[in-house]
Each structure stands twice: as structure tokens, then as C-alpha cells.
């Protein structure tokens, strides 16, 4: 068969035994693709993969050698933050560690002046435990509907996070 474009291009049937040419070329490309895939795969598999299971064995030692971000417990904070510690110890939040609200603070304990923990004065902090949602049943933890309860106003305007229950005197010491 010939497709000719006026004078310029003329393509004819090639000589020899070219009829399976297309299949042959595709075959070569497919084989090449598989070979490339196998090679790339070999390069991409991490060295220690499968040492213990279907994961990177080294990740265990890597994680073990990381420094702990959290300090031991609230007691570590008490040495320097007497006031908060005492307040918390008597309040409903007594079971909560300081770092639940202030974030990991191991660095702060060793070098208080250099890094300071997070102080999150947002309704989101309290809502993450106290917002009423399906699946958080009353009784385990007291829940409120933030919009109805405070109009979404920041909870620390009225509650002291370290001593959250409001007394009739309404103080926020």
C-alpha cells in the first residue's frame, strides 16, 4: 500500500519480511519496560527492608535513637511552676498531664529559658475534649455545646484551665 503526498513522501512496503515488524517493535519496548521496572524497583527498595517484617528494619534503630520530646510527667514541671501544679493537683483536670495542653516540653525542662512550651489560648483546645459530639457520651467527661455554652468565646475568658470548675464567687484565680 502506498500513501503518497504529492511528490515528497512516499512510503512503500519495505523489503524483506517486515510484516511482523510492528509486533516485534512493541515486544522489544515491552521487554525494555519490564527490565527498567525491575531495575528501578531494585534501586527503590530500602536496604533493610524485610529484615524483621514487611517494613524497613532500620526504622526501629532510627526511632530508638531519637530524643524523647516529652518530659516524664507533670511532676517535672511542678519544681518550677508551683502555682499551676498546685492548682491542677486539686482540680478536675488533675488527671491530665501538663503536656496534654502545653505540648511536648522535654527541651523546656532542661533549658527553660531557651524554648517555651505552647500556650494555646483557644476554644479549640478545650473543645477537643469537651465538645459534645455523637460518640462522646456524657458521664465519662462533661461535654458542652460550645456555641450554646459560650457563644464560641474563648473558654479561658471564664475558666481557669488549671482549675476549670467555676465557683459561685466567679473568681478565676
Amino acid at each position, binding site marked *: 500500500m502506498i500513501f503518497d503526498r504529492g511528490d515528497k513522501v512516499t512510503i512503500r*512496503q519495505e523489503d524483506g519480511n517486515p*510484516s511482523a515488524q510492528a509486533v516485534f517493535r512493541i515486544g522489544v519496548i515491552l521487554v525494555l519496560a519490564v527490565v527498567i521496572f525491575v531495575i528501578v524497583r531494585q534501586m527503590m527498595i530500602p536496604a533493610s527492608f524485610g529484615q524483621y517484617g*514487611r517494613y524497613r528494619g532500620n526504622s526501629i534503630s532510627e526511632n530508638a535513637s531519637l530524643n524523647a520530646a516529652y518530659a516524664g510527667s507533670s511532676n517535672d514541671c511542678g519544681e518550677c511552676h508551683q502555682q499551676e501544679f498546685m492548682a491542677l493537683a486539686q482540680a478536675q483536670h488533675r488527671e491530665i498531664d501538663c503536656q496534654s495542653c502545653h505540648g511536648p516540653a522535654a527541651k523546656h525542662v532542661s533549658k527553660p529559658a531557651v524554648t517555651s512550651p505552647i500556650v494555646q489560648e483557644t476554644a479549640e483546645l478545650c473543645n477537643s475534649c469537651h465538645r459534645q459530639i455523637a*460518640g462522646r457520651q456524657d458521664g465519662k467527661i462533661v461535654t458542652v455545646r460550645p456555641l450554646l455554652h459560650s457563644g464560641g468565646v474563648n473558654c479561658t475568658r471564664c475558666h481557669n484551665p488549671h482549675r476549670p470548675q467555676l465557683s459561685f464567687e466567679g473568681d478565676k484565680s
Partner: protein
Amino acid sequence: MGYVFPNELEINWGLFIVLYPYLTGLVAGAFIVSSLYHVFRISSLKPVSRLALIAALAVLLVAPMTLISHLGQPLRALNMLWTPSPTSAMAGFGYIYSFYLIIVLLEIWFMYRKDLVKFAAIKDGWTGKFYNLLTLGAKDVSEKALHIDHKVVGILAIIGIPSAAFLHGYVGFIFGAIKANPWWSTPLMPVIFLLSAIVSGIALLIVIFEVTCWIRRVKIDFECMMAMNKYLWVFLILAFVLEILEIIFIGYEGKEEWPAIKGLIFEVIPVTFFGVQIAGMVLAFFLLLASRKKNISQFAARIMTFVSGGAILLSVLAMRFNVVIGGQLVSKSLVGYTKFHIPIWEEGIIPTLIFLVLPFVLMTIMVKLLPPWLDEEPLAAVTVKRRRDFQAARGIEGEGAAEEIPTLWGRAASTLVFGKIFKEVE
């Protein structure tokens, strides 16, 4: 509503995971239509056999985008290819998908090889070079070579049918194998997914075929349309029966999960379940049935087939939604339901719409590059000037030889303005 566990508040598989089985389903269905022609020699489907493959490829390219966007960490998707777990159904995806993609690409290539060689010869400049590259240098278009091409296409289509069934059945398998979820956990799931996939694929082709014929202003191949109409109807019955059977079965068994599922379909998702999924199928069933009555005009039959196609496309989308989202709404406690809030951006409605439109954009581009029309003189795809030169060189003269070919938009506009819709009928 009711009692749900705290970790069920968030619906983890959102709209993208709804789209994924929908899109792969369209692929599988479209592919099966082309195979009906290539393998089972149903010649009335010839006019859409190429279009079906182009459509399948366009949708196939978009399908994994939804999954990868859902991951949030796209590059991690590759880890599954590097270190797949042999016992994970999910991990098979990358391999099954790639295999199928290769089959479709090869089938298209062999089918178009003759045209590619032709285009490489008659187009100038970069387009010519581009087609030249696409031929991979295999420019032999002798009778013998074309015969081999034809055979290869047949073989690929045969391999393709189980692959397509596997690609989509596997999606159903993943849902069906989750034993903790009563709405999903049934061995029927892969079969249901497969049948609804075939149904949606045929519906997609009906819609595309009708629309493209309208845009190209050619007379639609009525016989082909009615053949698709017939297959849609047959597969629709199967799909419908299985989907209903599953629910009746759970209801009749009446195990402890039935009240939860009953509540789900009657109270939580009644609109998408009865209003779209079931109603769409029932509507299509009767329209298709009526459209084949003797006393119905061709025009009416076409409209009815087209509407059924649209209804099925919506119905199957709703079905994917009801399965994927519905399954996550039922609490493991079996006495409560979570709420699904459709987000706007993140895995939300806007990217979802983009993913639904994207296959059609790709399709338009591919159809421009590789015209699938069998009714058109292949030269129409060439620029007017080239065609003139070509005809002059070959000494073809005649009426309208060098007539301007109106652009797609020009045609659409003139059709709208002059109300020439369905002009070619009668």
C-alpha cells in the same frame, strides 16, 4: 443519630473513593463494548468500537488520579509497586491497573497503526513528526502486516476482557471482603460491581455516540444505537436483579445487621438509593423496553435511548455513592449512623466535578489526534490546505473537495442558532 463510636465520626473514604469505582467501571464497560465487536464479532457495534477504546483510555487515565489525590501523599503510591504485600488486595491495584493500561494502549496502537502511518505521511511539520514518532517506525502497511495487526487486536481484546473484569471485580472484592461492614460484606459484591460497570460503560458510549454524532452533524448509525440499547437492557436487568437480590437476601435472613441496613436505606440515604439509584434503573428499563416497540419513530427511540443512558450514568454514580459512603455511615455498633458532610474543596464537590469533566477533555484531545470515526473520509482530519494539495496531487476533483470544514464550535453554534438539532433525521 443513635450511638456511634468516637472513631466513626470521620468518613475516611470520601467522594474520591466514590469516583474511583465509578470511573474504573466506565472503563470496564466501554472496553467490553469494543470487545463485543472485536471478539464476539457483533458487527452492528463496529461504529463505536474505536470510540469505545478511546473513551476507555481517557477515563482510565483519570481513574487513579482520584485515588492518588485521596492519599494526600501521591509519591507514597509508588511504594506499593516497589514492595507489594502478596496478601493485600489493595496492593494488587498498581499491577492490575498497569497491566490493563498496557493492554488498552497496545490495542489502540495496533488498531490505529495504519492511520498513524498515513497521518505521518500526509501531515506537515510538528504534527507529522509527532505521528511519525507514534508509529515507532513500524510503517509497513501491506495487506499482510495489517492482517497481523488485526489478529493482534483480536488477541488483545480477548486478554482484555478478563483483565477488565478483574480490574473492576477487584474493586468490588475490596469492599466485599470487609467483614466488619454488613453493607459491604458479601461475595456478590464483585459481581454486582462488574455488572453495574458494564451497564454504566454502555450508557456512557450511548451518550457519547449521540452527542458526537450531533456535534459532527452526521447521521447516527441507528442500528448501532439500537444494538447498544439492547445490550444495555440485558445487562441492566442482570445488574438490577443482583443489586435487589442482595438486599432482599439480607432482609430475609434477618440477622442482627438487618435493622441497621433497613434504617440506612429507608432513613439515611433514601434519596440517593431509591430516588436516584433504583429510580434511574427502573426508568431506563421501561424507556429501553418502549423504545424498541415497532410503532415508535426512530427519532423518539433515539431520544429514549439517550435519556436512559443519562439516567443509568446517574444511577450508577449514586450506586457507588450509596455503597462507599453508605457503608461508612452505619456504625459498628449497628444502632447508629454517622453524618456525611460534603466538603467543598478538600476531597470535595469541586475537585470531584473536575475529575468527572476531565475524562471528556482528554477524550476531546484524543479524538482530535486519533479520529475514531469510521464513517468519515480519513482525510477530513487533515487541514483544508493539505487536503487540497493532496487531492490536487492525486488528481481528485469534485464537488466540495476543498470546502471549508466548520469547527466544532462553529457547528454547535450554528446548530443552536438555526435550530437544526437532529436535522439529519428524516
